[in-house]
């Protein structure tokens, strides 16, 4: 979080609707997500209604609308992982965290993202938590891994 919103907007003086996506990308880079206030501020800057901006932003998977959690979980749904049944893995993560992709748990501990191939297809199905990769996932393993993060958190107080 290096820049605040006003600084970002300043980098796009007199911008029009064509600057929308780069602007949203800078906002997300800086804040990790697009907050409601940020969307409205961007809208005011570009002269676009909030509904238009959300329309564009929700079209792309890359934009998030909730602050990322402490631990960011990525579930791969690429071809190799799909063949190795990553659908079940995703389902298990969703159940364990009680959130949908793009969301953050209420305590702010985890956020979930679906990605298409993390480039380690040999280890499929794969999930990644923060910078750790976990190979050959099953529903059981997923639960254990997530639990271990929870325990760590609890231990750290």
């Amino acid at each position, binding site marked *: 979080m290096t820049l605040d919103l006003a600084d970002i907007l300043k980098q796009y003086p007199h911008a029009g609707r064509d600057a929308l996506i780069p602007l949203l990308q800078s906002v997300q880079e800086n804040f990790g997500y697009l907050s409601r206030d940020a*969307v409205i501020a961007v809208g005011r800057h570009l002269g676009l209604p909030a*509904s*238009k901006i959300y*329309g564009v932003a*929700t079209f792309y998977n890359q934009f998030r609308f909730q602050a990322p959690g402490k631990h960011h979980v990525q579930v791969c749904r690429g071809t190799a992982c799909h063949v190795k049944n990553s659908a079940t893995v995703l389902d298990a993560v969703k159940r364990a965290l009680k959130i949908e992709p793009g969301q953050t748990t209420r305590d702010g501990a985890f956020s979930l993202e679906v990605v298409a191939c993390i480039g380690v297809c040999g280890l499929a199905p794969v999930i990644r938590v923060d910078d750790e990769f976990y190979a050959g996932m099953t529903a059981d393993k997923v639960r254990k891994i997530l639990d271990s993060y929870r325990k760590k958190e609890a231990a750290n107080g």
Partner: protein
Amino acid sequence: MPVIYIDDQPYEVAAHHNLLHACLGLGFDIPYFCWHPALGSVGACRQCAVKVFRDEHDRRGQIVMSCMTPVRDGLRLTIDDPDVRRFRATIIEWLMVNHPHDCPVCDEGGHCHLQDMTVMTGHNYRRHRFAKRTHRNQDLGPHIHHEMNRCIQCYRCVRFYHDYAGGKDLNVFGAHHHVYFGRHESGALESEFAGNLVEVCPTGVFTDKPARRYYARKWDLQSAPSVCGQCGVGCNVLFNERYGKLVRVDNRYHYEINGYFLCDRGRFGHDFVNGEERIRRPLARESRGASLRETSADDALSRATQAVAGRRVIGIGSPRASLEANFALRELVGADSFYLGLSDAEFKSANLSLALLRELPTASLHEIETADAALVLGEDLLTTAPRMALALRQLARRQPTAESIVACPVPEWNDQAVRELVQQQKGSLFSATPGPTKLDEDAAAVYYGELDEIAGLGLAVAAAVDQPSAETDSLATQIATALRNAKRAVIVSGGNEAVMQAAAAVVRALRRAGRDAALCLTQPEGDTLGLAMLGGRALSEVVRDGAECVIVLENDLFARLPEADATAFLERTKTLIVLDHSITRTTARADVVLPAATIAESTGTFVNYEGRAQRCFSAFAPQPDVRESWRWLDALRSSLFWPTFDDVCRAMAQAVPAFAKAPDAAPSAAFRQIGNKIPRQSPRFSGRTAITAQLNVSEPKPPDDPDSPLAFSMEGSREQPPPALIARYWAPGWNSVQALNKFQQEIGGPLRGGDPGVRLIEPEAKP
């Protein structure tokens, strides 16, 4: 005209249409969702597939989307081929994968395009065994109910709301299987035209929220054609009733006026019909100071008759009452004692409008939409004539379309391509108003100023039209040039006299220059112009004169006169008789109140801003003690002269030359179709119910209707009625409002048999 071959049969069709439009127009049934005659094609739903062949030897053919295929001479196609039939059945099966199949509890059920199309394609078995994706619904305010799970992603809602009507707060979110149509967060929809989503959406996603309270299916509604009385545009509506309550107001197509769309004031603004404030029994008071109490109709009438007998009686008419009611009052009190019931400003503006309309041609909304340039002087149309603002927006959208199409020939119906070409260009719409309006963003240039400055601008434009000069930097010259360059121009104004005069000056200047120009003047209420045509004195005079006995027709004097004047005048009045449907400050001071029927319960004629007389028919018979105003007024006269509506309408046509053509606005009560009246109820109407069983176990006899060719019954003619008498849109296989296709000469064009109503004012000056 090109000839296309459908199953080897030749048909002549218009060149500028797409195949779907052409085939539907020929009477073929092709299922479709995303195409809409007013919105064009985007090819989003893939439902309208047909098979086209290269030539007569080609037997394999190719499946194409008929809505995206231009008509061309010699094109060969088949609609009913096993391949395309299977294709269409698969498409609808996919569209229905996530649909909750909740028709029994869905408010769209019974008039749902999705139901119709599902039956048409023959998809009747669900193979999808998995969980359905579900959405969270939003609270979209008091008028529109949201149920996103029923969506089939046709994109019509955004294309209407955003593209057509310029709404900012509804959009499409997400991608692939979780596409969402709504606002960015819950909240009331902001557009003045949001109600049209109810008819535009082919499924039950957007439904009429007030109507949900009544749990009534379309086939159980008793309906009649009528006219919206909320402003002077005179949009055509259908009033729908069940069990004595107005359930819903639907758009009634009129090619020249409202087309497919109404404003929300028209659709949702008639709740006073069921309102708490309704007066349902005659009221009278013993003496001044005593309180008003309910009485019988006979008693109220005899009191009123006594008060009227042998005295000078003053009548005050109303721009929200029908012509016939106003005429009946004028006959009762005499032309000298008839006052128009308009405020001073309204009186002046209505009379000036009449004079100008007699001099200069005017334009229907359809003519506004298709004009090439427009200037709005002084009016915030979204409040004074909302549907006219929507028409002007189409003008602003159409003009660059027309230009781009010449530069890069794409068909006008190809909506997506046209939007790409047009980008942010704007047409020649100019607006000069006292403050910002929602129409500004569609305008090429806007001007804000006081009314006299606006009038000044108008006169400057007129001068610049007369004397085109090279200097182009002033706004007036810019506007004048655009208007001169237009093949057809419209000038819109209203309200203020000076501004209206300036608008007329622009039209005169353009006509002097040999241009086709029209003047459109807004009117505040449904019958303001009609009242001016009937003629009468100004209300300010009555305050001066005063009278012993005053009859006020469907009017609240406190809304028309300064507070002090109204109070003083009513104080001096000995007997005040008021006819109205709801409680007002005037009825509260009356000595006798006669409960009047609302527009939904009356037959009458209204004159819109163009001078077009239109007939409204009662959708349901009023309660026993409630009567149409002209009936009460007729009963007050010494003998009954007008047993039926036609009698009063004809009497009016004879007495007032301006209304000579008014009876032609719709067929008279004598009209029959193969010996039958036109039923107000559908053949499936569930007439027998136990709803009144606590009063009487036998079925009440349906009321007679001596006033119109419509019957309060499900029995009667099954033929398509003449356009002025269409009470519902239905055709075999088409239960939704899209059955309208079968009622038009050409889809999106005039109704079969011509659009209803007659123009009463013809300008003297011919172009």
